[in-house]
């Protein structure tokens, strides 16, 4: 029982991050019909900019930084994400949407590898420990609380909470604001939306930036749990993509739920909860990938298939 609770909370806090990235992938796919291969690296960029502003590149001397600097760091990370994401949209996506698939595929990949190379040059240590934005250590037993016999990090609640809040805000923005209405109009019919005065390109560019930015927010909360590398963003982007593919780039909440499910699945396999088949744990990342590839091959995506 305690192991199950442990697995569920560990999985949900990892899955919450996947879920937010899946939302980004899903949103971008529905807005432009493309898949953004640099989204994960954009998330990594946001997280590292936050770290840079909040704590610098030196090894951390304390586990937490002041709230003000952290807030400043998060704002800076978000701003960089929006600028790089929107700039990337205009540079490598917009010229090719609907024309040359190889153009935007290569363009977004190049953007991703360029971002990672910049991070590699600026952050030369193999892995970084992020400071906690909130002093979790002071809560419970050195940052741990016991629920149903399982030791749960307080941070896990914060990650899940922040992710839920972010997804909720994103959902509210999509449903209730005029920016959200523009995005939904573009997703339904870009040409029609442009005709009734929606500034399609601007809205899309902003969405490209925000998709990375909001996911970076969750990463900043989650990252202190484990060492974070410059390549971690790309791996998170992959997990988010897998989750989005599992729900066929569906709605916001289904993408989020797929991310959560993926996180719990990985945790369950990884800790041997699902049977004690020896060596199964090594397959925890491979199985979802394989499933996603098979689903991709056999089920149509949401967009209408071109029959002729």
């Amino acid at each position, binding site marked *: 029982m305690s192991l199950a609770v442990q697995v569920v909370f560990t999985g949900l806090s990892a899955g919450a991050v996947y879920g937010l990235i899946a939302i980004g992938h899903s949103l971008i796919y529905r807005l432009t019909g493309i898949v953004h291969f640099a989204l994960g690296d954009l998330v990594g960029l946001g997280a590292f900019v936050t770290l840079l502003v909040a704590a610098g590149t030196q090894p951390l001397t304390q586990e937490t930084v002041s709230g003000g600097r952290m807030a400043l760091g998060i704002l800076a990370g978000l701003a960089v994400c929006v600028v790089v994401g929107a700039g990337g949209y205009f540079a490598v996506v917009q010229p090719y949407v609907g024309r040359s698939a190889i153009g935007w595929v290569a363009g977004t990949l*190049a953007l991703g590898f360029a971002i990672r190379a910049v991070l590699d040059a600026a952050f030369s240590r193999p892995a970084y420990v992020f400071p906690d934005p909130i002093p979790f250590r002071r809560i419970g037993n050195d940052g741990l609380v016991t629920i149903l016999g399982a030791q749960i990090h307080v941070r896990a609640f914060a990650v899940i909470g922040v992710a839920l809040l972010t997804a909720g805000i994103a959902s509210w923005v999509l449903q209730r604001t005029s920016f959200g209405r523009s995005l939904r109009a573009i997703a339904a019919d870009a040409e029609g939306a442009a005709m009734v005065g929606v500034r399609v390109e601007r809205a899309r560019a902003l969405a490209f930036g925000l998709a990375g930015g909001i996911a970076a927010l969750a990463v900043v909360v989650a990252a202190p749990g484990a060492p974070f590398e410059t390549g971690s963003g790309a791996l998170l982007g992959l997990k988010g993509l897998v989750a989005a593919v599992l729900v066929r780039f569906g709605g916001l909440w289904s993408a989020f739920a797929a991310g959560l499910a993926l996180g719990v699945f990985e945790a369950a396999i990884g800790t041997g909860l699902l049977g004690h088949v020896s060596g199964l744990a090594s397959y925890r990342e491979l199985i979802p990938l394989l499933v996603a590839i098979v689903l991709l091959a056999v089920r149509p995506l949401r967009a209408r298939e071109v029959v002729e």
Partner: protein
Amino acid sequence: MSTQTAAVRTGTALREAVATARRSWTDTATAGGAAFALAAVAPFVLGGLIAEDTLASGAYLALAATGLGLCVGLGGVPSLAQGAFVGTGAFVAAHVLRHTQLPAELCALIGAVAAAALGTAAGFAVRSLDSVRVAVGTWLLTWLVALGLGALPWLSGGGQGLVVPTRRLFGLNPTPLVHYELAVILTGLCALALLALRRGPFGLDLAAAAQHRGAAAALGVPMERLRVGAFAASAFVGGLAGGLAVQLEIVADPTAYGPLLSFELLVAVLVGGAAAALGPGVGVIVLGLIALAARALGALAGVSASRFQPMLEALLLLAVLTTGGNAIVPGAIRAVRRFRRVPARPAARAVMPAPKRREHLRAEGLVKRFGPVSAVDGVSFELHPGTVTALIGRNGSGKTTVLRLLSGTLPADAGAVRLGQHELAGLTPAERVHAGLVRTLQSRRAFFSELTVLEHALVGANRTRRYGGAVRTVVSTPLHRAENRLAETRAVAALETVGLAADADRQAGELTGSGRERLMIAAALATNPAVLLIDEASAGAAPEELELLKTIFIDLKNQGLAVLLVEHNLGLVRAVTDQVLELELGRVVPHKPNSRL
């Protein structure tokens, strides 16, 4: 006696082959030969500048990239899995080398076959997907192999990798120089194969499918089979490069075959020129220069070169992309052509065209429902050879649905279609084209803008070929060459019928809307059909173009075809048709000759 005639025939065929080769010897061939010779002597010239093993692994990278050129350049398919195929070849070869005493070349070949098997599976999985899903699927596959190698020590030898025993290569001591020359020769052969394929029916079909899937499907291009083939061949070459390179490196490194390798190979292909045979190789040379630059930069900044290399590669690719995708090799070819006049294509020699097919088509009780709506509700008719039938009716009356049921893009809920003795139910559109039933599409964008007018008709004529397969194209068998002439005759005849023979060498994109419409009729005609279904040829046509269409339809009738026209222009209908079918709400109603639409 018979051996003598066989010898004579072989002699003639050989002479012809030499003549063909001499005719097709161009500046490109000279440049390619020079590039090959330069590459072969590079280690002796560059001597101390670049280490031989660096050159050799670069040459294997060029081989893998040239293989990828088949998918990306010819097929226009954004494959991101080449790194995974190289890795598969490398690790399978490494395991075979460790556990058996087989010769080194055979081990590499087994690796290549394993990679080709994975490539076939991947190609089969993405055979009918749009580019977005192909990109995502192949990207996930690259990660699957990379994460798999990282997670499964029994496969990859864990963090240390697998140490690979060295064996003699083709009886030679496997020095880096031997590896290098082998890689250069294989890359050259692969580039030649790519060139032959691009000019042959395989490349033309792939290019057509890449430019407009729907139009290619309507002409019966077997897109799924082509794509599986392109993936398998790409993967085979990639796997071969991996299986040989791993013997050069001595250790199979599980971290070397990740997404970065797939990305680098894609960069090489796109920077050098995706469709040019030498493009990928040139792209790899550029990557090599980048590696040198990165090392210099790294030395300046005092950090490892590996940090700068991907960034420079990404920046280079972004530069190529943002300047309108002007890759190196195609750009150079264009620059040379500006100074040199391209010799005119010799006129096709007259060969007796194959006999026309004359079949009549009978549709009985066709039904198609979309939910509660019956789009087509029990439609029956016959089309006779040498007649034109018009299918008319208001918008939404079911005309295009009838065409789709006939051509097989939509399955019928009930009813039968017979062409002569053939029952067509259950056949794919491509199989129906082979049986002798072809259609044109309504959309004016449904054509291949980057092919020439003649090439359009050749895509159609390819459907009549029996010896147009990839292997026959690469080795250029006598039967294949004889068939080339027949296909060209057929294509030119089709262009003559629609009045486009004089425009044979123009880009299709330069034609007017009506010209494109006629071009697609010609492409359909070149498939040698018995029944031709034409969807709205007259939309937006000027009066003189309407007159031209009338003469074309009368000509088709005289050639013995059974033609079905979906038409809104009643003047055209009255002028050429023998039979009028009027549809109303999915049923055939008696046609009132004076009715207006």
